[in-house]
Every structure is written in structure tokens, then in C-alpha cells.
């Protein structure tokens, strides 16, 4: 009987074989042909831990570290290990309530699971950290983890040094995923422009992680790991004491100070007001502070030294004089008969602050007295030079001179997002005046008004050109990279001289410099006089208008002063703007004087200390419209926030004081929403 069905054993064997063959084919495909699974396994189980090198340190010209590294602590929690702790005591120590504690624990579990450590509180303030450390044995599951942060020991140079922050998605994409989410990267200032040097080279440690994402050991015994290389330090031209002084003098003012060493182009100090403390953006409250700075209408984070574009006013007259001299239109003996107004264009404008006839009897006197009529006329003579076919060609020549003095072009400072100011092109005037314009149309260009705009940096650089008699080196901060090699080309462009395009002879410069000396010694800038040092300067006072609440309002003039000293061997060139403060001599000149004293003599004179230092630094010159603008923007924002979220907690603050929004909401509906919302919120409060 068994023999009867024996053939069936072969069929059974065949079925077995075929089944196993199919399995083997699938195995062969998975294990040998496809490498998908290998990659997936690698992604799942190998964690490349980035080892962040220490960022480079930034030193000032005297070797003081002005941007350094420091350590703060994050409090980490592993929720699964938090057992039998006295929550109340913990909350007392850490200054929080129990509800908040529970929230954070739940948050940690939600974000990062029970078994992995997550941040409970980042960047603990020092006193909390000390308090926790004393009691840490009572709280299993909580550990302090070191976290390197940047620190600014002098609380100064916020705009120059910049700050670091987590890389955003745009940045990550731009660098082709070189940065990862959560990486810190220079966001502004030197931190950003020298990111490559400061950041060093990241190391990677390959670790194995388990199914719960816990790290359990080194992958392949660490043979694939790379070592982190620390970032290199930077040496700068900054004199941190001068910088601090400059910032102090600008407190409660809108304006900028730039001080450059003419021979090297190295920037000694660059301050912008209003200012902020750079350490505000590193500590535990950094995001709060950041938001505060961002919402301030006076824009404390704006570096006005490179981004403030001002009509340069009378400071431009020096350049106008050199241009006219070089073009051969005038000699130093040229005089203009000014009796208080300029009438050659028939409108009696611009006016001049001097009336006595003879105050512009020659170039030197005209510079010293800053005669508007004289330089307006000089501008017109330059533009209307019979050498050139027409006014447009003449204007282009003048424009080229201005550009070669570094106005209307980006200089290329080693800070991000520098503005280029404005020397208008003929195209602009052709468009505005349908090609029918002459030197009278834009005659105020000769005294730094009209459409002309310049940044304080450009003005300081122009001073360098005059001090150097014809060349400049692109203004920059960094003098040296520690451990610099030939591969570091970033500083090369700061080591080449830029000769200005027109070859102007030294004697012409001497004429103008003489005038500038007179400005300080017997002219408009008496407040900048320093005994024993020949200061050459030029004041400026620029008219400016602003649209406030729909009306154009003429505000107080900007106060300008540009100078360099000493005349014989220029060591410092300065440009100063104090917005809406009045004459150049009143505010800008004494500030310049103190900065020069500090830099050249290493200390302030007694006169400066008693008469000027406290007077200027404590004076509040913030324009009054700022306060009102702040209230207005805040209340508008509060209203937008309310419309978005129906949360009227912010709006209430402005409800009483602010009548604009009531007036503004003309249609009834909007007003209804607003009133009903506050009514709706009232009972809520009782809960």
C-alpha cells in the first residue's frame, strides 16, 4: 500500500524545495543585491555625534579678549529616572510652580521619550545653577550639562562683533546641509563674516544607538571618528577702551561714530546709538531680549555706522574743494562774495550761516567758516566746467570724483550688509526733470544735501583719503588671523592700497588740510581743539525731514563732524553723526575730541572729563517722536495679535492711552469687534 503512493513523496519534496528556493531568492535580493537595508540600518543605529570645536576668540589691538568663550549649564532631565523626588522642594529651589514642573516633564516625554535626556531648562542663571548643584543628590534624573556660550567681557562692541544663533533653514540649504538644525552659526558682525575661521572644524564621533535612541557605545570602536579642530582667533584693530568710550558718549542718542587708522584702514572704534549690551543675546534671557530689541522702533540692532545713510552736509565741502582744485577751476586764492545767501540761481538759496563779507575770501577761509554759497558755487563751476560738453558730462566727472573718494559705493568692510549711500546718477535727474536740468537744479549737492547720502563709515574713509593724501585701505577690523597660512585669502583685500583714480598732487591736499586745521583752530569746530595736537576737521549740519503721522516734519538737524589727527602724521580719522541734535560743533565735535584724546593720549584731558564727558553721555538726545512711534506700533501690533488670537491681554495696555486705534477704526464693525471683545474677556477674568 505504501508503494502505491510513493511517488507522492517526490512531490512533497519538490514543494519543500521550491518553497525554500523562493525564500533564498528573497534573501539573496535583500542581503546581496539591494543595499537599501544596509543604508537604513546604518541610519537607524549609527548616530554621528558632532563634536563642536571651541569658537575662536576675538582680541582687540592691545591683546585683550573682547569676545571669549564661557560655560553655562543646561539642566537636563531623563523622565524615566525621576523617581521619589520632592517636587515641591525642587520647585522652590528652581523658582517655578508645580504645574510648570509637570508641564515641562510632560513636554520632555512628548518630545524626546521617557528614557532619553532632554533639556529641562537651558542656560541656567549662575545662582540657580549653584543652588541646584548643592541639592542635586536629592533629584535623580536631573543633571547639569555644560554648554559653551559666547561672552563679551567688556559689554561692548555689540554691532561689530555680532552674535551667534541657531542656523535657520535658509542658511542650512544655502550651505548644502553643511550646517545642521541646532548648529550655532555667526549671525551678524565679525561672528558672521569670519564664520569659517572662528568656527574651526567639527569632529564627528560615530556612536551606536539602540531602539529607544539611547547611545550605547562607539561604532566600530571609534576608528571612523574625526577630531574637532578649535576655531582660530582673530586679532583686530579695535581699541576696546576707545570703543567703550564711544558707546558711552552715544548713549541715549541716535547716531554713529567711526574711527579709523588711516595708514592701515583698521577700524579703531565703531559705535552706533542706540546701543545694546551684547551679553543680552547670550544668556538665559536671550530670546526675550532679542524680541525686545527687535520691537524697539529706535532700532538698537541697526549698525548705523554702516547702515545709517545720511545727507553728509558740510562735511562734503572738503571733497568739493579738492575736486575743484584738481580740475583746475580754482586756486586756493579763489574767493566768493557771500553776504548770507546764494543768489546766482536766483532763489537766494542756500542760506549761509555767516553774513560778514569776506568770510569766504579764499578757500581756506571758506572751509574754516563753512560758507554754503562758496561751495555751492564751487559745485556749479565744477559741473559747468567749459572743458566738458554739457552739464551732464560735467556732472559725471564730479560724480566720478565722489565715487573715487568712496562715496556712493560699497567699501567692502568686513561686516555683513553694508550700505552704499547715494551719489545720484544723471539718469535720476534726467528722469525727474525730463532731461532738462542744469547745475542750479541740484546745487545743494555742493553742500552735501539734495539726494546725496553717505554712511559714517564712508565719511571716515574719505577722511583717511585726505589724511593719506590720495589712498585708502578698505576699512576693516581684523588685522591678523592666529595661525594664518597662505590659504587664508580673506584678509588679502585689506592689505592692498586703493589709490584714488585721479592723481591729485599732495600740494592740493595740503591746501585743504590747512583749511581743515583752521576749522578747528579758528573756525566752526572750536570744541574739537586739543592742546598739543593739530586736529584737522570739518563740521556738518544736515537738514532732514521725516514723515510722521502722514505729515512731513522738519526735524532738528543732524550734527556731523569729520576729522583726522595729528596733521603731521595722521593716526586717527573720525566721522561722527548725532541725529537731530543741532550744529556739528555742539555735539559731534566734542565727542570727536574725546575719542582722539583717548586714542592718542591714552586718557582724557581734565577739561574733557569735567566739562564734556558726563554732560554728553548723560544728555538724552533721542528724538521725541520715537516715543510716540513706539506706542503706536505697539498698539497696532497688539490689535493685530488680538485679531489673530482673540487674546486682548496686550491690547488692554494701550486701550486707555491710545486713541489712535479708536479713531482709526472708522467702520463700525471693527469698533464693535473691539468693544465686544473686551466685554467678552471680562467674565473670563473672574475664573
Amino acid at each position, binding site marked *: 500500500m505504501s508503494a502505491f503512493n510513493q511517488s507522492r*513523496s517526490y512531490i512533497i519534496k519538490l514543494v519543500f524545495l521550491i*518553497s*525554500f528556493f523562493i525564500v533564498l531568492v528573497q534573501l*539573496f535580493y535583500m*542581503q546581496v543585491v539591494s543595499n537599501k537595508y544596509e543604508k537604513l*540600518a546604518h541610519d537607524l543605529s549609527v548616530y554621528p555625534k558632532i563634536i563642536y570645536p571651541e569658537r575662536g576668540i576675538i582680541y582687540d589691538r592691545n591683546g585683550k579678549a573682547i569676545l571669549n568663550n564661557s560655560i553655562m549649564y543646561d539642566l537636563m532631565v531623563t523622565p524615566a529616572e525621576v523617581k521619589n523626588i520632592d517636587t515641591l522642594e525642587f520647585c522652590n529651589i528652581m523658582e517655578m510652580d508645580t504645574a510648570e514642573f509637570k508641564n515641562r516633564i510632560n513636554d520632555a516625554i512628548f518630545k524626546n521619550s521617557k528614557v532619553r535626556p532632554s533639556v529641562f531648562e537651558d542656560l541656567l542663571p549662575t545662582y540657580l545653577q549653584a543652588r541646584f548643584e548643592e541639592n542635586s543628590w536629592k533629584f535623580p534624573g536631573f543633571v547639569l550639562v555644560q554648554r559653551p556660550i559666547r561672552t563679551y567681557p567688556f559689554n561692548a562692541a555689540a554691532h561689530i562683533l555680532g552674535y551667534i544663533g541657531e542656523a535657520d533653514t535658509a542658511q542650512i540649504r544655502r550651505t548644502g546641509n553643511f550646517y545642521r538644525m541646532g548648529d550655532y552659526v555667526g549671525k551678524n558682525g565679525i561672528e558672521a563674516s569670519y564664520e569659517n575661521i572662528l568656527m574651526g572644524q567639527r569632529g564627528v564621533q560615530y556612536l551606536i544607538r539602540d531602539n529607544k535612541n539611547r547611545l550605547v557605545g562607539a561604532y566600530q570602536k571609534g576608528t571612523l571618528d574625526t577630531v574637532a579642530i578649535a576655531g582660530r582667533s582673530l586679532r583686530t584693530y579695535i581699541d576696546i577702551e576707545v570703543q567703550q568710550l564711544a558707546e558711552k558718549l552715544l548713549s541715549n542718542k541716535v547716531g554713529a561714530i567711526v574711527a579709523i587708522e588711516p595708514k592701515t584702514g583698521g577700524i579703531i572704534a565703531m559705535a552706533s546709538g542706540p546701543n545694546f549690551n551684547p551679553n543680552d543675546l547670550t544668556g538665559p534671557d536671550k530670546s526675550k531680549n532679542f524680541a525686545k530689541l527687535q520691537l524697539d522702533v529706535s532700532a538698537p540692532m541697526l549698525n548705523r555706522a554702516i547702515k545709517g545713510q545720511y545727507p553728509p552736509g558740510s562735511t562734503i565741502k572738503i571733497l568739493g574743494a579738492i575736486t575743484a582744485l584738481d580740475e583746475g577751476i580754482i586756486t586756493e586764492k579763489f574767493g566768493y562774495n557771500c553776504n548770507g545767501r546764494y543768489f546766482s540761481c536766483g532763489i537766494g538759496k542756500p542760506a549761509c550761516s555767516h553774513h560778514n563779507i569776506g568770510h569766504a575770501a579764499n578757500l581756506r577761509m571758506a572751509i574754516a567758516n563753512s560758507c554754503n554759497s562758496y561751495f555751492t558755487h564751487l559745485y556749479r563751476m565744477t559741473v559747468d566746467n567749459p572743458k566738458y560738453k554739457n552739464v551732464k558730462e560735467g556732472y559725471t566727472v564730479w560724480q566720478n570724483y565722489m565715487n573715487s573718494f568712496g562715496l556712493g559705493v560699497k567699501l567692502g568692510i568686513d561686516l555683513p550688509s553694508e550700505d552704499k549711500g547715494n551719489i545720484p546718477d544723471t539718469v535720476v535727474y534726467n528722469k525727474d526733470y525730463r532731461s532738462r536740468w542744469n547745475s542750479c537744479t541740484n546745487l545743494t549737492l555742493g553742500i552735501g544735501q539734495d539726494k546725496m547720502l553717505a554712511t559714517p563709515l564712508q565719511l571716515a574713509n574719505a577722511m583717511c583719503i585726505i589724511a593719506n593724501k590720495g589712498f585708502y585701505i578698505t576699512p576693516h577690523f581684523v588685522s591678523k588671523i592666529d595661525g594664518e597660512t597662505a590659504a587664508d585669502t580673506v584678509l588679502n583685500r585689506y592689505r592692498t592700497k586703493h589709490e584714488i583714480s585721479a592723481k591729485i598732487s599732495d600740494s592740493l591736499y595740503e591746501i585743504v588740510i590747512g583749511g581743515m586745521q583752521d576749522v578747528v583752530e579758528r573756525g566752526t569746530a572750536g570744541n574739537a581743539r586739543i592742546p598739543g595736537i593739530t586736529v584737522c576737521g570739518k563740521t556738518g549740519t544736515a537738514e532732514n525731514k521725516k514723515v510722521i503721522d502722514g505729515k512731513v516734519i522738519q526735524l532738528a538737524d543732524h550734527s556731523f563732524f569729520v576729522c583726522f589727527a595729528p596733521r603731521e602724521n595722521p593716526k586717527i580719522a573720525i566721522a561722527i553723526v548725532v541725529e537731530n541734535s543741532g550744529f556739528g560743533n555742539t555735539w559731534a565735535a566734542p565727542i570727536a575730541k574725546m575719542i582722539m584724546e583717548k586714542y592718542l593720549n591714552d586718557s582724557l584731558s581734565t577739561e574733557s572729563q569735567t566739562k564734556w564727558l558726563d554732560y554728553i553721555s548723560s544728555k538724552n538726545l533721542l528724538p521725541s517722536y520715537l516715543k510716540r512711534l513706539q506706542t503706536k506700533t505697539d498698539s497696532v501690533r497688539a490689535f493685530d495679535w488680538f485679531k489673530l488670537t482673540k487674546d486682548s491681554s496686550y491690547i488692554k495696555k494701550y486701550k486707555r492711552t491710545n486713541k489712535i486705534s479708536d479713531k482709526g477704526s472708522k467702520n463700525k464693525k471693527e469698533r464693535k469687534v473691539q468693544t465686544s471683545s473686551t466685554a467678552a474677556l471680562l467674565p473670563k477674568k473672574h475664573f
Partner: protein
Amino acid sequence: MSYRKQEITKGIDWLLLWLWLLLCSIGILAIFAVTYKDGDSVIQALVGFKTDYSKQFYFFGLSFIIGVFILLTDSKFFTATATIWYLLGIIMLLLVFPFGSNVRGTESIIRIGGFQFQPAEFCKICVCLALAKYLSQPQRDLGRTKTQLVAASIVLLPAIISVMQSETGLALVYFSFFIVMYREGLSSMILIVGFSVAVMVVATLLIEKSTLFFFLTSLALVTIYFLRRQVKKKKAVLFSVLFIWLLCVSIQRFAVPFFFKQVLKPHQVERIFSTIGKDVPVEYSLDGGIVAKNKDVHYNVKQSKIAIGSGGFFGKGLLKGTQTRYDFVPEQRTDFIFCAIGEGFGFMGSFVLIGLYVLLLFRIILLAERQRSTFSRSYAYGVAAVFFFHIIINITMTVGLAPVIGIPLPFLSYGGTSLLTNSILLFILARLDADRQMGMR
């Protein structure tokens, strides 16, 4: 003494026992590979009965002792007591209802002291013996309906009880005994029809309703087109094709939905869908369309495939597999133990292991065919069928070819009951084979 020793070892198929020893050792090694934590003292842990590999080692020892006892037993004992064993097995299965405890979603486990005992596993031996006993009776003829029905009931009774205990995987194993019946003369037509119905049911569960209907209809039309000559000659051909089509459609449209809606309980429906790795369709879920997710099952298979696939040709080496060592694959000690081999020893290791299994199965069939008694032969085929089913379903599950049906890999998976059951099955076979000259029974 020497006489006795000769008695035990005489006629024993050593290859079978060597294969058993080898597979058990690979099993302990694999369990060691997935549960060993750095810093464990291996020897201490192996003796200590604390770790899983140590437990498996002890179970292996226990299996060996029981195996020796089986070899000491007279082979007539098994033929004589087969029916009693069967009754005992069924009673044990039924005991689960009052005494069982719910572990990992199944209710088929009895706890005795610190041990868990799974009667559904153990019952395989009983069924194997009982079926062999029944088929070996001279008056039985699998060509007759009565014999077919009795044999089927012997096999399916424990399967049904297992399904009621939500142990679908093990219930399916009992279907492997149809291989035995096939060998003993069951018409292949019945198997083909049965297989087709099974395929239809599975297809109904896996494939979307209208798609399947469209497929069946077009299949029927194509068949009619190709058979148009025969159809012209004989109308019966047309009717039979139409009848088959109607049968398939009715299974798909009415029988399966009826069975799922009326006969099965919601948790059983859920369990069945979870074994094939799909979410319960809205029409079958009674709690108002809340669909139970089977993310776990997808996750298991994905991780298991990653672990095996990342092994490459030669594997990562013992204890160097990142996926299995760090618990990425759930249930990797038990149902997914193949991952440890696949990742640690790569395609070569998998090939060798499968080779060993094929060798074992073919050896068993060879032993079966050399038996003179129908009992021994049927029993041997039973063992081969059970092993084959376990191995093929388990491995195809881990490589993602079959739905996740939780059944262990013989001799490798961690689990005392499984190891003991499979060892006992093998040792009884060895004993029966040793006595193959004793004459027809």
C-alpha cells in the same frame, strides 16, 4: 549495562540527532547574540538561569533528558497510547479556558509556578500520534469520505479550539497535517480545491472587493474564450466555469463577510486582520468604524527586513549586528530569531541554516519512506509537515513574504514549550525509526 546501552543506540539515526544538536546549539547562540549585554559574564549567566540563553540552555538539557527517556521507551508504547495522548492534549487545550492567562494578546497559556505552558504547541505531538494511529488502521481508506472526515476532524478539532483562544498562528499549523493525508492517499483534488478556497478567503481579506470581483470575472471570461471550442461541443464546460466563478464570487461577496460579521467576535476579527498585517476594514469593525491600527506589525516586519537585509553576504559577525543587538526588532528572541542569523552571518549564514533545515526535512522523509509500518511513516510525515510549516511560515514572515503569523522557528526560537515539543516529536521519530524492523503494525 553494556547490553542496555547497545539496546538504546541500536538502529538510531545518528544524523537526525546530530542535526537536532546542531540546530539547538545555533538557537542558543542566536538567542545569546540578541540578548547579551556588554559586560555580562557568559559562563555565569549561562549557568545562572537568569538570562534567556541560559534558560534556553536548560530547556535544551531538559529536552535531552526527555529524549533519552523516549529512546528508552518501547516504540509500541506510542502506538498503544496514541489515542490517550490525543484525549489528554484536547483536555489540556480545554483547560486553558478556565486556567489560562492572557499573555501578548493570546489566551492560550497556562502558568504553572514560574513557567508558562502552551498546550497548543504540545498538542501537535498528540495530533501527530493520533492521526498516525488512525491512518494506520487497516480498514481506513482515505479514498472514502468517512475516513476523510474523521481524519480531518482529528486534525481540525485542536485547530478550532486554538482559534477560539486567539492562537491563529498555531491553529494554522494543524493544516500542515493534510500533507500527511496526501501522502497516505488523500485525493489531490480535495487539496487543490481546499487550497483554492483558502486562497480565495485570503485574497478576499487582502484585495479590495471590487478589484477582486473584476479580476475573477475577467478570469472567467478569458477561460471561456480559450475553451470556446469545448464549450461549443459541450455546454457542461461552460456551466462548470460559470459555477466556479459563482462559487468564488459568493465566497468573496457573501461567505467571508457573513463569517466575519456573524460568526467571529470583534477581537477575533481584529486578530485575524492583524496576522495578515492589515487594518480591520470599517465594515467588519463593530465599534462604529474605529479602525484598529496595526502599526506594530508593519514596524516589526520593516525592522526585521532591515536587520536581515543589512547583513550583506558574509554578515556583520557574532554580536556585531547593530539592529538585533540593540533591540530594533521586536520579538527577536522568539518569532524573529532568524534576524539574528540574517544580520550576524549574512546570506552565507542564512543559506547554511536553511540548508540544515532542508537536510533535516529530507532526512525525515527518507526515514519515513523506509518505514515498514504505516503508523511510523504517517508519524514521520507528520513531523516533517509540522517542521516544514513552522520553518517556511516563520522565515517568509521575517523576510516580508508572508503576513506576520506568530509561530516560532523550530529549535531556534526562544521558548521552552516549543523546544520541548519539537524535540519530543523528533525523538519519538528516532525511536520509531530505530524499531522499524519490528514488523508491520
